[in-house]
């Protein structure tokens, strides 16, 4: 009874902590409230079970977690979080499979079903997340990898995996578990591998959010196996959070989850000949200082290309120079500007850009009409007007930042190649667009110098 009350209080503390994350001003306190709840939960269980060797294991894990948490950089955050998703899945798979392998006797059907289900979800989360983390870290190719019959294999693994979980309803008990458990582990591991390996760089926000949700679901199901109200409650919280983020990311990328997970082929990037207008008469750069000085209202659009070029600091200096010159500057953030939900906000906060300058898609889009100059840095698909018009292309229908409605656009991208979607950017052809190809670390300081003290 005491344990139940304590568990409910801890879940409520976590909910209150998340509630405090509504505003950046209270979010730090919210996170620490969560930490306090977690510490209380761990101490409570340690006190209840009283295993001294468990204390050592906690310290070992805590130290590794501390090192990981200290050493990871902001640009590496997506792979760090993917890895943590995977570890959560691993812990669920370990706990539930050991529970099933060493039963006390007399377990009900629900026990066997949830134990095998949690094992499957856990190993799926682990393998899928590790593959995603390796891709994000660049240790595996970022491009989607397809094998012959990929969709068929995914469907096969999903079907057989589901059947092996369901078989526990027909054959509950320890006789067959030694067969079902390893089978489930292998099938779901393969499913995770084949699922993640075909996801390309820009689809990463979806798959990370999805595995975040799965790690919570695995925890919740493990809670049903080991009779823990804390695990079911908190696991459900994590599962819901991941599901909400998955939905947001799918909408922002115009994808649906079954298409990403189940088998409809995501169009791989095609190298269409980019329609270059190299025959431009005068060097447009000569007009730049005039354009920059003449404009009053600015919107900066950072894309993942900016982060790849490590040009956040250069962009910050550009913004500072504009503000010193008395210009009005806003920053437009597309939901999938980074490699995971909210990634771009973190990268900009890191270089000291205040969050009240950052505007989300719905807020900023009506404002482009009254904007003198948009400067896009390393952004392509998220500003491609073809998303509104080019039916049948992968980006058709995807919500974009409507930068072409502004009076003038400067695009500072590495080259004129299409973005991840493979759809050529029609913005480049528009008469009010000026393109500056090259490394943002070189092009952006040039713009800053033009605004300069002069």
């Amino acid at each position: 009874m005491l344990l139940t009350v304590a568990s409910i209080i801890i879940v409520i503390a976590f909910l209150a902590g998340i509630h405090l994350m509504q505003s950046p001003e209270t979010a730090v306190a919210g996170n620490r409230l969560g930490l306090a709840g977690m510490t209380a939960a761990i101490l409570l269980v340690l006190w209840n079970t009283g295993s001294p060797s468990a204390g050592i294991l906690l310290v070992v894990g805590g130290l590794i977690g501390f090192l990981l948490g200290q050493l990871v950089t902001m640009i590496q955050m997506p792979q760090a979080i993917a890895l943590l998703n995977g570890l959560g899945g691993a812990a669920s798979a370990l706990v539930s499979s050991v529970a099933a392998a060493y039963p006390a006797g007399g377990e009900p059907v629900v026990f066997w079903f949830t134990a095998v289900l949690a094992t499957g979800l856990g190993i799926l989360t682990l393998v899928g997340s590790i593959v995603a983390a390796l891709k994000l870290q660049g240790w595996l190719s970022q491009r989607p990898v397809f094998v012959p019959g990929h969709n068929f294999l995914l469907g096969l693994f999903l079907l057989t995996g589901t059947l092996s979980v369901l078989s526990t309803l027909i054959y509950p008990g320890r006789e067959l578990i030694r067969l079902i458990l390893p089978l489930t582990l292998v099938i779901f591991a393969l499913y995770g591998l084949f699922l993640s390996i075909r996801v390309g760089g820009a689809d990463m926000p979806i798959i990370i959010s999805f595995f975040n949700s799965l790690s919570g679901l695995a925890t919740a199901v493990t809670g049903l196996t080991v009779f823990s109200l804390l695990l079911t409650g908190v696991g459900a919280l994590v599962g819901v959070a991941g599901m909400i983020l998955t939905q947001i990311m799918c909408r922002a990328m115009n994808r649906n989850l079954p298409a990403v997970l189940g088998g409809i082929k995501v169009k791989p990037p095609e190298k269409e000949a980019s329609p270059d207008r190299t025959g431009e008469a005068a060097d447009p750069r000569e007009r730049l200082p005039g354009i920059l000085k003449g404009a009053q209202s600015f919107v900066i659009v950072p894309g993942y290309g900016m982060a790849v070029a490590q040009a956040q600091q250069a962009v910050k200096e550009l913004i500072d120079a504009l503000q010193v010159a008395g210009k009005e500057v806003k920053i437009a953030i597309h939901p999938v500007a980074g490699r995971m939900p909210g990634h771009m906000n973190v990268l900009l906060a890191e270089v000291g850009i205040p969050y009240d300058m950052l505007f989300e898609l719905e807020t900023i889009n009506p404002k482009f009409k009254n904007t003198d100059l948009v400067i896009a840095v390393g952004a392509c698909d998220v500003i491609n007007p073809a998303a509104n018009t080019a039916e049948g292309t992968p980006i058709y229908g995807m919500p974009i930042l409507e930068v072409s409605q502004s009076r003038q656009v400067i695009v500072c991208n590495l080259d004129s190649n299409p973005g991840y979607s493979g759809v050529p950017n029609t913005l480049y052809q528009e008469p009010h667009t000026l393109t500056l190809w090259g490394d943002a670390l070189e092009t952006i300081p040039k713009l800053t110098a033009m605004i300069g003290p002069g």
Partner: protein
Amino acid sequence: MYPGLFISLIAAALLGYRVISSVPPLLHTPLMSGMNALSGIIVIGALTTYAASPSGARIWTGLAVIVAMINVVGGFLVTDRMLRMFHRRDEQTGELEGD
């Protein structure tokens, strides 16, 4: 026993949906890393299973304790690091002088 667990699952999911939906996209990365930390709650299950498991299984349950604890500490730490970076324009000048 099971009804209580299912109720807690559904109740947490419904309440969670309300609370989590109101976290702004600005903070979605720290939200997710915070969720990593919370999914470290599996450490509770790992600790009880560890205490109850026969010595042959302790390597697995012990591993689960370590892995879950990486989630707890790593998750809360990166969330804290990220959240401390967010600040408003009016707070900025003071901080810059401090640099």
